[in-house]
């Protein structure tokens, strides 16, 4: 009997253990629900944020035949198909094949398809095959496509 009585509590323990497992399983299920609801919340916020980033991504454009002299400052994208003489600061600059820039240029992303004369400070530089670049250029990442004409001092940051 004494052995039986000793076994009894362990049997009780086992029976106790099972419900606790069930409880943890319930917890896991509850957590999964939380995660799924969180991800759906994220997708909602993403949908909300996309139109705002589109507004930022909307480029400022200097059209072909347009000549600008002075300083341009922008937090967004700048497309230059015309001519700019002066200082340009923008997050992203594209100099189109008809574009000409004469002066200082600071930007994170810079794509040159046209002509550029002056000092450049950028992170990501891409020079197209028909581009002509002349000046001192400091960069982080560079890509020059075959045919691009480049001259000047290059400094990698």
């Amino acid at each position: 009997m004494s052995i039986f009585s000793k076994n009894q509590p362990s049997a009780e323990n086992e029976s106790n253990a099972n419900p606790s497992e069930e409880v943890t399983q319930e917890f896991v299920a509850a957590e999964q629900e939380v995660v799924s609801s969180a991800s759906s919340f994220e997708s909602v916020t993403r949908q909300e944020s996309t139109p705002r980033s589109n507004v930022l991504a909307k480029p400022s454009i200097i059209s072909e035949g347009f000549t600008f002299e002075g300083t341009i400052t922008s937090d967004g994208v700048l497309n230059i198909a015309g001519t700019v003489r002066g200082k340009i600061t923008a997050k992203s600059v594209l100099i189109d094949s008809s574009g000409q820039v004469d002066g200082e240029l600071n930007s994170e992303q810079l794509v040159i398809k046209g002509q550029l004369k002056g000092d450049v400070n950028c992170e990501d530089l891409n020079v197209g095959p028909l581009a002509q670049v002349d000046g001192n250029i400091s960069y982080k990442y560079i890509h020059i496509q075959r045919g691009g004409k480049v001259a000047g001092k290059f400094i990698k940051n």
Partner: protein
Amino acid sequence: MAEVNQLGCLFVGEGVVLKGNFEVPDIASISGTVEGELTAKQVLIEATGIVRGKLTGESIDIRGEVNEQVSSSRSLIIRSTGKVTGSIHYSEIEIEKGGHLHGDLHNLNPHS
């Protein structure tokens, strides 16, 4: 191509160090280190290759490292692992993204 016809070619294996001036009529493929002047029709600097000195050729393809001076009369390609410091003279240039370029660039025929 280089493996088939080795006439007039120079191959420098990894770990080999060459010092002096070298005139190569055809292809120079460098996986080791060259210190001095190297002139070849076609130059391939492999990823482990290093040239310290003046490098001259028609077509130059750089996956490794070149210091001091590079002069290419036809095409110069700096691959993504390539690193060039010093003055560069070229007629046609291509730099892959990630390529490292530190120095002066000069176009041999700027008005063509």
